[in-house]
Every structure is written in structure tokens, then in C-alpha cells.
């Protein structure tokens, strides 16, 4: 029969979960018949459990940086500057720099929009067709048959009517043609 002295010898292993199967049977057999030892064991086991149930420390990473030891919260992945103040990834960006960047982006967008609008407007305002000089030459070239002074004048007038913006050259040619007769 297991004695209380044997119980005392096995108590540490029982609380530390290091009992061999044989010793465990011996131990439990004594608990079944000895109330004092049973109370001793159960209350001690509860105390160990209370200690184990306290929240565990958070995981930390420890590394060396030069002559400094850095302890980081693993989960938050925080790092420290030389003053020991926390630097989160977000806090590394200067708020003023962030504002300036945002302003630049807006300005760039506005510039792109303006340029696109300017180009589109110019595209719409400019008459379709070849550059002024070439257009007149082609129109002139388009006159069928032999070209008389009157035909040339008519062609130039037509060119002027179709493209007033390009009519400066047309005006000159009209004037030249008129002078020539």
C-alpha cells in the first residue's frame, strides 16, 4: 500500500507531469484512499494551473544593430529610432510631405486635363485638311485642264472660302494673279 511518504516523493513529478506510467498508478491509487494527500495534490495543481493561465508574453524579436539591442514587437513589426521612440511604417512619412505629394498629384492631373482639352480644342478649331500651303497647291493642282488666270483666281477664291485661316497665301496669290491678268 502506498504511503503518504511515497506520495510526497512522487508529488513533484505529478505536478511537473513527469510521472512514469507505473508511478502514476501508484500515485493515483493513494489519492483514491487518502483525502489529505488528495487535497494537497489538487490544490497544488490548481496553483500551478493559475500560474500557467496568466497571459503569455507577446512574441518579440531581438536583434542587434551596431551596439544597440533592438526588441521589436513581432506582431506589429515596430522599430525604433535612436531616441527610443517608436517608428511605425505609417509614422515614417512626414505629414507635410504627404500633403505636398497629394498637391502635386492634383496639379499633374489638372495639367494633363488642360493639355488634353487644349489639344482637343485646337483639333476641333483647325480645319481638316493638309497644311495651308500644300492645300492651296493641291487645290490648284486639282483644277482640270489648262489653267487660265480666271481658273486660278477661282481656285484661290474657293480655297479662301473653304479655309479662311489659310487664306493669307491665297490672298497673295489672288493679288499676284490679278496683277498678272
Amino acid at each position, binding site marked *: 500500500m502506498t504511503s503518504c511518504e511515497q506520495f*510526497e516523493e512522487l508529488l513533484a*513529478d505529478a505536478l511537473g507531469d*513527469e510521472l512514469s506510467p507505473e508511478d502514476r498508478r501508484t500515485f493515483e491509487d493513494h489519492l483514491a484512499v487518502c483525502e489529505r494527500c488528495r487535497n494537497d495534490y489538487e490544490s*497544488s495543481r490548481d496553483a500551478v494551473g*493559475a500560474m500557467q493561465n496568466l*497571459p503569455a508574453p507577446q512574441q518579440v524579436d531581438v536583434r542587434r544593430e551596431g551596439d544597440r*539591442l533592438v526588441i521589436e514587437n513581432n506582431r506589429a513589426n515596430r522599430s525604433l529610432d535612436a531616441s527610443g*521612440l517608436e517608428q511605425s511604417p505609417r509614422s515614417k512619412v512626414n505629414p507635410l510631405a504627404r500633403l505636398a505629394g497629394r498637391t502635386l498629384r492634383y496639379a499633374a492631373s489638372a495639367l494633363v486635363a488642360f493639355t488634353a482639352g487644349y489639344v482637343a480644342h485646337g483639333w476641333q478649331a483647325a480645319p481638316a485638311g493638309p497644311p495651308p500651303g500644300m492645300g492651296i497647291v493641291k487645290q490648284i493642282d486639282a483644277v482640270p485642264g489648262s489653267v487660265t488666270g480666271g481658273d486660278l483666281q477661282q481656285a484661290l477664291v474657293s480655297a479662301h472660302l473653304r479655309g479662311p485661316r489659310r487664306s493669307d497665301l491665297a490672298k497673295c496669290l489672288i493679288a499676284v494673279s490679278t496683277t498678272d491678268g
Partner: protein
Amino acid sequence: MTARRKGATRLATIAKPQESSFDQYAGEVYGWAYRLLGRHHDALDVVQDVFMRWDTQCRRQTPQRPRGWLRRVTLNRAIDLRRQRKTNPDLATGSLQFPATAADPGAGVEREELRSDITEALDQLSEIQRGVLVAKVYDGMTFAEIATELGVTPSTIKTHFVRAVRAVRDKLGQRWS
């Protein structure tokens, strides 16, 4: 100890590289301190203090069993710090790591009281009893491993362990009764 911005993680300075086997144990030092104190920043304070003591010790003679030495010093320092916090609550830094939830508003307070009782019980123990208890319960070491680390026989370790557990039990029993 200097005040610090809330949320900051303390840096500890290593004096010389050849003495910094400390850095391989720094995480455990933090864990031991946290177990007793329950506050992240207090635990970091202890890490820094323990490192300074380690540095001083290594200038004289590096401990033969560094882990055991560090555990002993850490637990002592954590208990000292807790004593200070108790007498000067204004020095406490940071909030409880695990505050109560809305469903159980008293849980955080109860947990903190439990931790306080456990730490007070540890305070009443001898250094070796304290070290054995923490090594067994929190570090998960076997009695043989603890005996090797501390340079004593396993039977001595087991005796210390049982005494330490009963001391904690008696302290907690006052709460539970």
C-alpha cells in the same frame, strides 16, 4: 527609469559584442519579466536593467550558467519593480496588456490581482525556489534540465519545486477562500 512615449519599445545598449550572449537570451528575459509584471513596458525596463547588470558581471567574470543567472536576476528585478509600482503607482507605465472585455469587465482586474498574488508569493521564496518554479512552469524545463542548469541534483530541484508550489498555493488560497 526615464519616462518614455506610450507605445515605444525600449532599446537596450550592448556594451561590447563579445559580451553580448545576452542578446540570445533577451527574449526570455523579457518573457520572465512579463510573467511577473504583466506590462510590456515594465518588462522592457527589466530587460534594460538586467542587461546593464549582465554587462557589469561580464566585466568581472562571465557566468558559467548564463541562463540560470539571467533568470535569477530577472526575477529579482521584476519583483523589485513590482514592489516599487505598488508603493508608487504613478510610476506605472503602459496599460494592462489584456484589458477586460465588455462581456467580462472584471476579468482584467481579477487577472491583475491574481498576478499580483503570484508575484508576492514568489517574493517570499528563496532565489533558487523562485528560479525552479519559473523554469518548470513557464520555461517547460524538466527537473533534470533545471538541475543541470543550476548545478544541483534533481531531487534537490524537486524539493524546491514542491515548496514553491505550496507557497503559491497558500497565497492564492487566501484569495480563493
